[in-house]
């Protein structure tokens, strides 16, 4: 019976095609999954980078850095140590050594003095917030003005 043969033969053919399709689907699926992973990682990196840039440029980073327990990064410490003078604990204490110490100390003092009036009162003044000066109280009328003037007094 040809119909039966076809029926018998067809399932084998179908199963082979299905297997091929399934394999292709699996490949596509895994490829799509990989793409999804890469894209989402990329988006995460991008958004994190953008938020870090905003965090840095807005100055909010200094709010955290101003905390009492803040410790500088290792890289910052190294840069600082390389660029600045450090007085040695050992060695003789000659005039030349003291001269050099004074010179570098004054340079560091200038670094501090570069900030003109740190934490001055001006930024919190009424004027800076547009708050007007309190109105001067009108002087109370003197009793002499309140009372009528009598020429016979």
């Amino acid at each position: 019976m040809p119909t039966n043969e076809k029926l018998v033969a067809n399932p084998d053919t179908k199963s082979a095609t299905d297997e091929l399709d399934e394999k292709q689907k699996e490949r596509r699926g895994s490829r799509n999954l990989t793409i999804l992973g890469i894209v989402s990682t990329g988006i995460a990196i991008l958004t994190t980078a953008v938020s870090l840039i905003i965090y840095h440029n807005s100055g909010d980073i200094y709010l955290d850095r101003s905390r009492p327990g803040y410790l500088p990064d290792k890289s910052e410490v190294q840069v600082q140590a390389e660029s600045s003078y450090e007085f040695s604990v050992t060695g003789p204490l000659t005039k030349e050594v003291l001269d050099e110490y004074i010179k570098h100390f004054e340079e560091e003092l200038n670094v501090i003095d570069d900030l003109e009036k740190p934490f001055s009162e001006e930024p919190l003044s009424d004027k800076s917030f547009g708050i007007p000066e309190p109105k001067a109280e009108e002087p109370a009328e003197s009793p002499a003005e309140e009372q009528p003037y009598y020429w016979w007094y």
Partner: protein
Amino acid sequence: MVYNICMLRKATLLSAITATVAFVLLLGVVPVSADSTILDNDQIGAISQNCATIKQSLRALQRTDARTRSYLGSAYERMLSDFITPMDLRLINVNQPNATLTTIHSDIIEARQQFVHDYTVYSQKLEELITHDCQNDPQNFYHTLEDTRAKRATLEKSTENIRRLLADHLAVVKKLEQNTGGANAN
């Protein structure tokens, strides 16, 4: 009858003590605002109207102050670790300990700790000021502003104190240098 009178006296005494304790506690809890300024209508109006701008200015100031704190804190730390502490130790190493420098050294450490404390107190007050509703409650906002000003003034004095101590240290070292006069002190 006598028992009742005794009980009444005890109750009166107890309530008097309770009232006194409550009053004392209340004095401690309720802020006394005798020194605070009472605003006139123009000032209240100006605060309410400029509330958004004031908040913006305060946030900008908060960031600037944080930068200043970071800058000064690093500078003070560097002065101590790279100059003042090694100088004291070196003087001890060459058997010439200087009592004045040692005193200034400990004063600077103390002043620096005070600066850190004053900044923390000030920044907390500033944060409180920023979160205060200046549009609907301008009077109390102004009281907080006055408190913040006081804390800022304390902080400013703290920085001035450190600067003065650093100048004192330099003056003593200069004197030491003059006394050394080119001879090897070791």
